[in-house]
């Protein structure tokens, strides 16, 4: 027994030693900066150089119509983006599960490749597609859509389309993970017992996929809340979202405490979604 205990003590020691670099990075590069944001958001510097606790930076956000509109736009866009990724992503995950391995790899590659290219490049592509004289305008011109109606730049629809491209993989891969866990046997059982294809999908597959759809939706929603580059380039200055407003407070008006307060709100909203997400993922494993 003593030998086992000493072996256990030694592996424990090894683990602690192995964890040192990771914990250091986490402290220096993650907890410390996030802590700085939290502190900056609730203090005010007086003229004598002392600082006092204050909620004024948060109040500024909640009393101003402009910022409430920005928050509402951010939430609304995130909701529409999540719905759209679910509508396309869930069937796509099911197709991948049933497809031949080659086709599955092709779909996987086409879903992952945009995710792996720089966000500035993806967005640039959308600027060329959605903009004036772009691909979409050229395609729909013969159908009688010309001028403003054919240009989705600087519209919320444009932001949604461009964001769905980026976030679809998160939905597809999460749902695919759950579908693979279900296996095909239940479906086959349903079919042999006389249920039609669509009935099996509705009664067996879809209900079992719900945890995957929920966790996929939570992650997509959280990621779209904080997205920055795509909404600011496609939406432009007329359609600011939270992230753009934070950037403006930092680089434009140099109001860092206000930027910190907005960041805290964004982080809080994200955590509200991520915590149930993490729980779901853990139980499904």
């Amino acid at each position, binding site marked *: 027994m003593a030998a086992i205990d000493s072996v256990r003590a030694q592996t424990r020691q090894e683990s602690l030693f192995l964890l040192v670099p990771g914990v250091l990075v986490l402290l220096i590069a993650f907890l410390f900066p996030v802590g700085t944001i939290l502190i900056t958001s609730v203090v005010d510097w007086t003229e004598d150089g002392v600082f006092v606790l204050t909620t004024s930076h948060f109040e500024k956000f909640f009393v101003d119509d402009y910022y409430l509109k920005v928050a509402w736009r951010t939430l609304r866009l995130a909701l529409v983006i999540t719905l759209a990724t679910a509508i396309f992503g869930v069937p796509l995950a099911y197709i991948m599960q049933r497809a031949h391995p080659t086709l599955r790899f092709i779909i996987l590659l086409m879903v992952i490749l945009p995710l792996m290219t720089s966000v500035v490049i993806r967005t640039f592509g959308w600027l060329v597609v959605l903009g004036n004289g772009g691909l979409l305008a050229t395609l729909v011109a013969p159908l009688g859509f010309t001028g403003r109606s054919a240009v989705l730049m600087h519209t919320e629809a444009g932001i949604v389309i461009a964001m769905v491209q980026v976030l679809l993989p998160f939905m597809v891969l999460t749902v695919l993970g759950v579908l693979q866990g279900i296996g095909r046997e239940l479906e086959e059982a349903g079919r*042999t017992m006389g249920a039609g294809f669509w009935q099996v999908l509705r009664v067996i597959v879809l209900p079992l996929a719900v945890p995957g759809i929920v966790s996929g939706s939570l992650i997509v929603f959280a990621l779209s809340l904080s997205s920055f*580059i795509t909404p600011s380039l496609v939406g432009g200055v007329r359609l600011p979202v939270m992230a753009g407003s934070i950037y403006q407070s*930092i680089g434009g008006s140099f109001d860092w405490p206000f930027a910190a307060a907005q960041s805290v709100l964004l982080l809080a909203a994200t955590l509200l979604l991520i915590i149930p997400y993490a729980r779901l993922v853990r139980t499904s494993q």
Partner: protein
Amino acid sequence: MTGLAPPASAHLMAGALVIFTAFVMLVPLGVVIASSFSESQFLVFPPQGFSFRWYREILSSEAYLSAAWTSLKIAVIVTTFSVLVGTPTAIALAKSDTPGRATLSGLFLSPLVLPTLIFGIGLLMTMSIWLGGASIWGLIVGHLVICVPYVIRTVSAVLSRADPLLEEAARTMGANVWKKYLHVVLPQCRTGMAAGAFFAFNISFDDAVIALFVRAPGVETLPIRIYGQLEFSPDPSVAAVSTLMILVSLALVLLVDQAIGLDRMT
């Protein structure tokens, strides 16, 4: 079995959905590539003519070359440190008797799901308050936070398939701690480390969000240069740079697939 096959209508709808998705996912990248070979000054679609003039232009542009060099330097440093930090972390998390394993792994992977922008802002504020301003090292640290989790994931994925008895065998046969790690544990991690390195390189090389916030004087990465051009007047030279970057990403994705298989990264 034929009786259980999905009906023709399902096949038709599946085909339509796959083609539509392919369109939405790939067309934006396709138009960038197509525009890079344009002859004209302006970005219009369809592109006019065919030439390599924008490639010649960027390859002789001091600004693009120095941005590319900056990005490359940062990505190499970030990749090296990510592997050095992520691998031991993943090894520790794979051991069943590491205390607080679930909590720790949640904490280590959390940068994957938290807004990247928060790290950028936090680092900018931290550096301005305590270190007198942003520097290239702030950017490197910021990239490290978002890259290490990928290495942890890829190495963990490989270790979950590894044989735990090997490590025990090495110990009972008298290998000391160093030998055990060098000859038994690390070789098991190799493919995961490679895949993690490719991810880390790609993420650092492509990042614009942290780089936009932690902008140090005189440090301009390639994505920041592209962002700047998009804000005012993009011409096909941006498309040429972007095409080269897409090729780098594609190569790295295929390398990850070679190393551990893309479907293990889900």
